[in-house]
């Protein structure tokens, strides 16, 4: 069991200035599974997600306590370069955010700048776009601006862009909340496909989405981890009453 754990949080507290956003979080994410983080707005689930690739470093006046172990190393240790962590832990954001560059250059941007082996950039671009199931739609317009794509296509492009870095973990922060149902369905199918090769941790406000795509679900409330269980269990017979109340829509 332990060998399946890819990232492990140990008594993590997180502060924005004086206010505590996460309290004593201890949990482990399992390799090649989809883990969903759910909970009402402001419960700390996005904060937790952004802790895992040190994106919270960008915000002034924040503080982390406890440790987050990835490959047996605390990613918040002094000698760890956050840039290295972000190479291995990719991220997809709530709103599609392609660069105002061509489709090709959106994908090639990361690998080119991070001294990855880029002998065959064309192949890498094709591979990544195929993984994100976007290749057939864009293969003839690789040199057109990514800004011309639809929202759903842009989000798949952002997924492809993250995949091009060959990360171990893919973090997704409400990746479908800005998309229409058809695009959402496509992304969900994609996530199902991607978990064969990647560990996916996804924040979602959509309960059905969590139930559909995830293997494990964690319910957060007011900065606390209330329950973390198999998704089936969470949605059929949760251990904690609060979880049940939230899932059935009694509060949140």
């Amino acid at each position, binding site marked *: 069991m332990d060998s399946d754990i890819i990232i492990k949080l140990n008594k993590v507290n997180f502060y924005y200035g004086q206010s505590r956003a996460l309290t004593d979080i201890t949990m482990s994410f399992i390799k090649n599974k989809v883990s969903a983080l759910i909970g009402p707005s402001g419960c700390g689930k996005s904060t937790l997600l952004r802790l895992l*690739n040190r*994106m919270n470093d*960008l915000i*002034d006046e924040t503080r982390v306590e406890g440790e987050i172990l990835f490959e047996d190393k605390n990613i918040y240790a002094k000698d760890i370069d956050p*840039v*290295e*962590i*972000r*190479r*291995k832990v*990719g*991220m997809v*954001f709530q*709103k599609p*955010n*392609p*660069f*105002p*560059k061509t489709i090709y250059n959106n994908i090639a*941007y*990361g690998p080119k*700048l*991070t001294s990855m082996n880029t002998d065959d950039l064309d192949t890498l671009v094709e591979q990544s776009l195929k993984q994100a199931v976007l290749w057939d739609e864009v293969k003839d317009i690789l040199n057109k*601006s990514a*800004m011309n794509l639809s929202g759903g296509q842009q989000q798949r492009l*952002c997924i492809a*862009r*993250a995949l091009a*870095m060959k990360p171990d973990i893919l973090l997704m922060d409400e990746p479908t909340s800005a998309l229409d149902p058809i695009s959402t369905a496509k992304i969900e199918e994609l996530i199902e496909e991607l978990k064969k090769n990647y560990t996916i941790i996804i924040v979602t406000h959509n309960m059905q989405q969590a139930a559909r795509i995830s293997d494990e679900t964690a319910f957060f409330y007011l900065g606390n981890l209330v329950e973390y269980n198999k998704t089936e269990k969470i949605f059929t017979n949760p251990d904690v009453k609060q979880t049940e109340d939230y899932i059935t829509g009694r509060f949140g």
Partner: protein
Amino acid sequence: MKDMMKSFKNNSMKWRYFKQNLFFGAVRLSALIIALALGGILFYIIVNGIGAISWDFIIKPPTDSMTKGGIMPAILGTIYLTIGAIAIGLPLGIASAIYLTEYAKQGRVIRLIKVGINCLAGVPSVVFGLFGLGFFVIFLKFGSSILSGSLTLGFLILPTIIGAAEEALKAVPQTFREASLSLGVSKWQTTYRIVLPNAMPGILTGSILGIGRAAGETAPIMFTAAAYFTAKLPGSIFDEVMALPYHIYVLATAGTNIEATRPIQFGTVLVLVAVVLSIDLIAIIIRSYMRKNKRW
């Protein structure tokens, strides 16, 4: 009751339309006044100056104690000084703005620096001129030269460029930075590859103002670069030059024959305006080229 409601509603709609028209009229009038004033000045300069313009006026140096001949050395001098000012002000200004917006920890010190920069923008240009004289010309021994003049003008336009660059950098969506950083791209690469290219059109827009100012200022170059008269073209950046604004000043106040040289004065003004507009035009063309890819 229903009718009353209706008529009241109509009345109030009429009143609101009246207010709207009144307001639109006022703003339209303001715009018109500005356009007329600008057109008037331009018209006045063209009417009075066009007579002096000829091919010889553009390509020949002044003759007969500057009462005849052309203004070629002054045109060239102004172009040199402006390019020099941009070469100094633009990189320095952009670099400062990058530090202030992207790297520096926002706090009291940075706020103080920003206030200082804003104050600098309001300092009269003659102060810059005197500073240039004391520091570049005398202390650094650059003499009255293109170099001293360019440095002084470069410093003069620095606050304008820093201000424009700061605004342009801040306008680049944070999501671009996040996307780049989340790929494991370093902060400097993110700034250089993503933030700066997207801010460049905005930076140039603001810089155009600075360019116009650099080309048109008299006081800063009076002590640092401009010659009263020299028929010789500058051979190095340590040479003195004639410059259009200073030439106009000289002809209009201290020339050998002020009344007789009026047409030359207006001709020189017209050329100055044309030079400034052409430099602006180049900046605008570069900007529109850079903007082609920008859409978010």
